[in-house]
Every structure is written in C-alpha cells, then in structure tokens.
C-alpha cells in the first residue's frame, strides 16, 4: 500500500507553515516507504497524490478551537466541514481541491486531512509557541495512524477508521 503525507503551507507566513512542520516531524517516525512532500499551495495536489492509496494532508486550519488544537477529518466520502476552514493564501483552497478531485474521480481510496488551529499568519513571522506545541501532537497522532494502517495490511482498503 502506497502512503503519502503532504504538508501544505508557506514558511514565511507564521502559523500557516504548521503543515510543513508536522510533515517533517512525522517523517522521522515513519518508515522510508511512506512518501512525505511539502507544498505551498493545494492546487497541485490532484497530480501529486496520483497513484497513492492513502493520502494524509496536513494544513493550517481555523475551526474555532484554541491555537494548536489538532483536527482529524476523513474526507474520503464527505467534504471538509464548513466549520473548519483551512488557510490558503492563493487560488484554490484545500476544500475546493478535494471537491474538484471528487467530481473528477481523482481522489485516493483514503484521504484524511489533519488540521492544526492557527493563532497568527503574519508575513515574515515564525510559528507561535501555542502552535509549535500542536506540531508534536499532530505528528504523533498522524504517524501512529499511518503505522496502524500499514500494520492492517489488506484491510486498509476500508475507508472508515
């Protein structure tokens, strides 16, 4: 089973970079055959995840929780809930790209979004401390989920979790 982790974000926009940091932190805990990529915008995701069975996208999010809160949203069958907005600086947002992929029949068999609640996305700033604490939590949760599905072997085609 081919697994891909994609961190989405801009390194120069404060907490918007959180997806990139989570992807990096998770990489250390994952076997080498799990691909880890980092992108600035979600628009290229349809191509990026082609050929993968399970895809985990990590992005900055605004869902009303405390900064650093981790959301796990399985979007294989349903759209991203409107109550959680992922942060995108330009063009198509993550929710739109996922729905575009659904309409075009270009979604992986399992697609899960991890969102981390942001505090500030100002130009030229680093991660805030509250969100930095969320990076560890998100990376741990993400890597243990992936290790678990890799352990499940053939059962991994089921979309529930």
């Amino acid at each position, binding site marked *: 089973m081919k697994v891909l982790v994609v961190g989405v974000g801009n390194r120069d926009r404060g907490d918007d970079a959180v997806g990139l940091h989570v992807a990096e932190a998770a990489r250390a805990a994952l076997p080498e055959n799990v691909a880890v990529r980092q992108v*600035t*915008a979600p628009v290229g995701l*349809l*191509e990026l995840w082609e050929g993968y069975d399970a895809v985990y996208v990590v992005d900055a999010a605004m869902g009303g929780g405390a900064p650093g809160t981790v959301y796990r949203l399985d979007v294989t069958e349903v759209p991203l809930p409107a109550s959680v907005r992922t942060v995108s600086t*330009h*063009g*198509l947002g993550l929710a*739109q790209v996922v*729905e*575009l992929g659904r*309409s*075009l*029949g270009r979604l992986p068999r399992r697609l899960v979004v991890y969102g981390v609640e942001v505090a500030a996305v100002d*130009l030229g700033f680093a991660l805030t401390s509250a969100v930095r604490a969320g990076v560890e939590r998100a990376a741990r949760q993400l890597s243990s989920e992936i290790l678990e599905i890799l352990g499940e072997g053939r059962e991994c085609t089921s979309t529930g979790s």
Partner: protein
Amino acid sequence: MRPGRTRTIKVDALARVEGEGALRVRVRAGRVEEVQLRIYEPPRFFEALLRGRDFREAVDIVARICGICPWAYQMSAAQAMEDACGVEVSAPLRALRRLVYCGEWIESHALHVYLLHAPDFLGYDSAVDMARDHPEAVQRGLELKKVGNLVMSHVAGRSVHPVNARVGGFYRVPGREELRDLVGPLRRARDLAVETVRWVSTFPFPDFEQQVPYVALRHPTEYPILEGKIASTDGLEIEVQDYDRHFVEVQVPHSNALHSLTRDGRPYGVGPLARFNLNFPGLPEALQSLAREVGTIPPCRNPFRSIVVRSLEMVYACEEALRLVEAWEPPAEPAVPVVPREATGYGCTEAPRGILYHRYRIGADGIIQEARIVPPTSQNQRPMEEDLRAFVQGHLDLPRDELTWRCEQVVRNYDPCISCATHFLRLEVDEG
C-alpha cells in the same frame, strides 16, 4: 430600480482572481456616480528592495513577484539588464526563452479559462461546481495546465519561480533529445487547445463594447511575446525605452496598486485583446481561419470575449512551442558574457495578462540604483473601472444579486493579478 434611490454594489472580497481585492460602485438617482476597484493586498516594496542589489540578482528576485507568471518578470528584467550592459543574446537563447514563455502562457491561460473564467459563462459559482456537470472540460483544463508547467520545468528547472534564467541567457541549455520529450505532450495540448476554442465560443456573451485604446507589443514577423515595439490602436508606435515618455503611473487613495494612464491622462488596456487586435496578421494562417470560424476577429472590443482570445493564444503557444522544439539546436555556450556599466536599461515583454515594463539604473559596479516595474494589472485597473461604470449604467434593471455577480465578471474578464500589481509609490515632499 426606482429613480432617486441610492444603491451601492459592494463585493468585499473578489473570488477567482489572483490576490485580494474588492470593488465598490455607487449609483445615485439612476446614474453611476463612482466606481472603485479597491486593491487592499498590502504593497510589497519590490522596487525598493531591488535597490542596492547586484544587477545579476534581479532576475531571481523578481521571479518571486508572481507564482503564475514568474518567467515574464524574469524575462523583462533580464532584457533590461542586457540592454543596460549593451549585450544581445544569441538567436538560440532567444528561442529557448520564447519556448519557456509559451509554457507560461499555456499554464496561465488554462488556469484562467477553465478554473476562473468559464464558470461565469456557464452559471456556476466555482470550477468545483462546474466540474460536477462538466468533468471532461475541467479535466481538459488541468491537462493543458500540466503541459504548460511541464514545458517550464523541463527547460527552466521548475514552473513556479524558475531557477535557470540569468542575465545573458541560461545556466544550462537542454540537448536536442531532451527537448524532444515535449513533442508528444505539446501535440496533445494543441488538440485540447483547439477544442477549448470551439467550446468557449459557444458561451453566451453579453453585448458590450469598450472604448479604451489597446496597447501591446507589435512585431513585424511574429506574434509578440519577448520583443517588439510598443504600439497602440490609436496609432502609437514607440521603442520600449520611450515608455516613460508616453505613460505614467498615478496613485489613487482607494487602491494599493498604482493606476497607469497615458501622459495626457487617458486609460488604456493591455492583455490578450490588445495583442490580438494589434497582431492578428502575426498569427499563422490556420489559426486566423479558426478565429474566423468561431466568429472572433479584430477589432474585438468585447472584454467578455477575451476568453476566446486567450484560448486562441493557447493554440498559438502550443504550435509555437512545437516549432521551437523541432528547430532546436543547442548553442555551444548557455549564456553570453555580460559586463556591467553605468547605464539605464529597459525591458518589456508580453506577460499572459499584458505588457510588463521594467527599467533599471545600474552603476559601473553593477549595483542597482533604481528599479521600476509596471505590471499589466496596474495598467488594466482604469479600464476595469471604466468597464464597470459602463456595464452597470447599461444594466441597472438587473436584480441586485445578478448585477453584483456580473460586476465581478467584468473584473475577471481581465484575469487580474492583484498580487503583482501592489507596490508603493515613493513619497515626495515639496517643502518649497
């Protein structure tokens, strides 16, 4: 609308444009009183941060101005620096630059035609909604964009903020065989682009004609991308270095982007319609026939029809890229040597959205002393406002929601790149 009422149309955040902007139209007693396209994305100070940098660095710094048309910025800057240093690049290097530029036109036009503009004509809020009913069309758009990106990354290292451009040429040029990899994808893209022309030509276009003159590069033998004189439908034809003698940028309180006007204070439009109207004979005969077949020929003054012209330009870019790939003979050196001297240099190329003018003053040490960048969206702001004024005046009977939606379309006709257009005018205080 009842006479005497005041009505304000506000769109606080424009969707499906590159960057952040809003628009405001005020109507009093049946007359459009005020139209403001507000670009509130913060200014980015690129011209200021270029000062004090080495002249060779500009090409990589300006690539960061735009993720959709970085090559346009790189080419206008490289040209201006080569002009300042009195250097001309060889014919094969020019051809290779044109090839990458074709890739950029394809990816930028495909994005706008399919994901941003087509939903307006078919009555969808977004490309995502459109994809549910027209998946094959959206798939076609994504495939075209992919080929455009491929051309760019194949030659220039990557499609966003390319890394292979330098003053004097390239860091590395591809071999003959390497470029042949592009033939298959480009042939497929050309067919898809022709389908695109036929598809968009069936859209319903409102009757609307704009009055502004158009300004574009004009070249005696080819459809202009990298070079030509600056020409207008009013009969102007000047060298690139005379741009500042004929055009000015002014600041307006309601926008963070400067407005460009002619020296005598008139607006003018740039982009696909301008290129098309000024350079139709430069298109290959077969493409001229296709344009006639779908009923879009010069003079075309309806900005809603820009989607057809963009699609025709996609076909052109695919064919031109194929021609360049097939004729490619790599030169012995990837770049010509460039030695700085104290001078001012000028560059102007046809970005997907219209002419992009750069001017740099550099010292004998190669340090940039002054930089000026005039992006297409600055130049198109005033015509957008003029179009809004005329369109709203002619359609006051439309229900409010529809009129608001139509106003957004009037702006999207220009494929505005707001991020590119925001920069800051230096403040001069006269204490005399």
